[in-house]
């Protein structure tokens, strides 16, 4: 079964690269969903004799990441009338090169932080760290509010890859609480995106720059 798990890890890393390269917002949403679903399969493969609680949990994760999140995001995208492009601040080749560099750095870090023997799958740490980095890349170099939420989700995927493969025996309640939080987070962000699109007529976060210490307030101090 380990080979299958390792295949999943490879798929996750490849999905990172394709997200960094993808210019279409809809495709990005689908890729992040696919990554979430694939990652959720990990604990089912990583050991023998999977308890029924874990199966329920994995199903919940798959439902959430494979169906509910993409649906919420697509709905926000359609409602806010976002154009199709991801509009990166840096070019796609640069994004890919950064991703590859991050993977190299993550592999090096993985050798510095060896997991105890109980962990069964190789390359967990590099895959998870490079996924987190891809999330940060999406978060910082794509201008739209939706891609920022997407980045947050990819970071979350990276964390799950690490967590799910290692801690099947953690109390289920804790994982459920964490999952609930992530769900509510995306939900609240979705609502906020809706408000932003209504208030500003777009969801380009580069325009969210009125607050700060460096720029004088445009119309401040009239009273």
């Amino acid at each position, binding site marked *: 079964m380990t080979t299958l798990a390792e295949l999943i890890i490879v798929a996750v890393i490849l999905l990172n690269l394709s997200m960094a390269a993808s210019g279409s917002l809809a495709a990005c949403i689908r890729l992040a969903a696919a990554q979430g679903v694939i990652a959720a399969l990990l604990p089912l493969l990583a050991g023998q004799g999977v308890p029924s609680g874990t199966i329920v949990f994995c199903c919940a994760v798959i439902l959430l990441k494979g169906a509910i999140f993409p649906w919420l995001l697509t709905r926000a995208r359609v409602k806010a009338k976002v154009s199709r492009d991801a509009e990166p601040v840096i070019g796609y080749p640069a994004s890919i090169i950064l991703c590859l560099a991050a993977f190299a750095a993550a592999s090096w870090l993985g050798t510095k932080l060896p997991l105890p023997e109980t962990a069964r799958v190789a390359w967990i740490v590099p895959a998870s760290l490079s996924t987190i980095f891809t999330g940060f890349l999406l978060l910082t170099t794509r201008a739209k509010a939706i891609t920022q939420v997407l980045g947050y989700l990819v970071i979350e995927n990276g964390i799950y890859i690490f967590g799910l493969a290692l801690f099947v025996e953690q109390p289920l309640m804790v994982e459920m609480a964490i999952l609930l939080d992530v769900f509510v987070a995306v939900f609240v962000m979705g609502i906020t995106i809706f408000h932003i699109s209504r208030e500003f007529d777009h969801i380009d976060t580069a325009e969210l720059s*009125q607050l700060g210490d460096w720029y004088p307030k445009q119309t401040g101090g009239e*009273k």
Partner: protein
Amino acid sequence: MITLLMLIPLFSGLAAFLISDDGRRRAMLLAVAGIHLALTIAALVARPEMVPGDWFGLDPLGLLFLGVTSVLFLGASVYAVKYMALEKRDPGEDSDEGFIFNNEPETVFTGCLLLFLAAMTAVTASRHLGILWAAVEATTLLSAPLIYFHRHKRSLEATWKYLLICSVGIAMALMGNLFLGAAGLRSGLALDLGSLLSNAMSLDQAWLKAAFLFLFVGYGTKMGLAPFHTWLPDAHSESPAVVSALLSGALLNCAFLGILRVAQVCSAAGLSGFTGDILILFGILSLMTAAFFILAQKDYKRMLAYSSIEHMGILSLGVGLGGGAVYGALLNAVSHSLTKAGLFFVSGLILAAYKTKQISEVKGLIRRVPRTAVLWMIGFFLITGTPPSGIFLGKFMILKAAVSGAHYAAAAAYLFFLAVVFAGMGRIFLDMTLGEAAVLNEAEKPFKSSRQMLLPAACFFACVVLLGLYMPAWLNDIISGAGDLITGGTI
């Protein structure tokens, strides 16, 4: 008792969404705040036993922060009830740009306030780091609607930044928690605080260090340590005064508690040197950032926000120095919460009187609103650490520990930035209080601060002054107990 402490605000918060009668909902807010404080006091007296392995329990550290949160919330709800009544009467014209906006429904606001209290209680009482994480994330999500009370562009921008930066920060903390789990994997430890502490020596050191870094960045973002503080001034300046007070006084402490819990584990594992250096470094960095931004500040609510960053830096520095400084840091945490909440309450009144947040537009407070002006100046003296006050004592203890621990560079930087902050804030406060008040139009009624909104700030300030003069034995017990937990790492 802990269950009640969490469930009462939880259910009343849910109920608040359904109660349409303003009077009843406001009465419920006050009642719940009162009951919560009463239960907290009962917990202080009874000191319920902690069962090993339980997810919730109150040790001195948790009790200390629970107490502060509870007291603050009572003050905030007294203020909020009047505030909501006033907001209802004449809804909003924007203070800076003059456009008209709507307010969030009061049901949502009250409901989120109460749920926010439930989440913060859960943070202070949790003994399992996974639960602690979930509770901290819940505080972020529940306070986002509070910041967006005034529905306009700037508050929306602040809410978005707050949500996103803090959520990503908290995601880093989750990663840290998993690393901590990896550190204990070989010896089969879960994230239960009690078992982590008693088996800390068997944790894998490399993983533990990585875990501390991630958790520090994660909770440090929420706590507002520089350079992760960028959401804080925006959120504090755009939200209503009550919410700013709760964010600064209670929420930042809760995030700090997250860092303290990991620091506890690290010092039990013999890594206090490693964690101490990081805490000192980022503490000084926060002090520096706050000092520079306070000097050039044009907006008085942002100034208060930067002052919070300064104090979070002081807390981090104090805990990093260890020894007697930990006691000072905890005393400072308590006094800062009370003082800063009071100052935000007063700033809300100034905003209501002058309808602007620009420092340059506010002149002659002492003539226009004398009672508010007096409180504003008292708050200034307290927050900058003028004796006698709890903040002065706390700051002094930290300085003493820094010098006696031969951290001369840190001590010098600390003193220098405190002086800069004092000068910067002194100029702003004096400018606002003194000077000629602008002549009012005939049509404009002179603003009169309501007694109900002045009272919480006055009480908080009185407490802080008292803390500087007389330290009650029970409080001393709790603070030193909490300090022992951080430095000793035992249960």
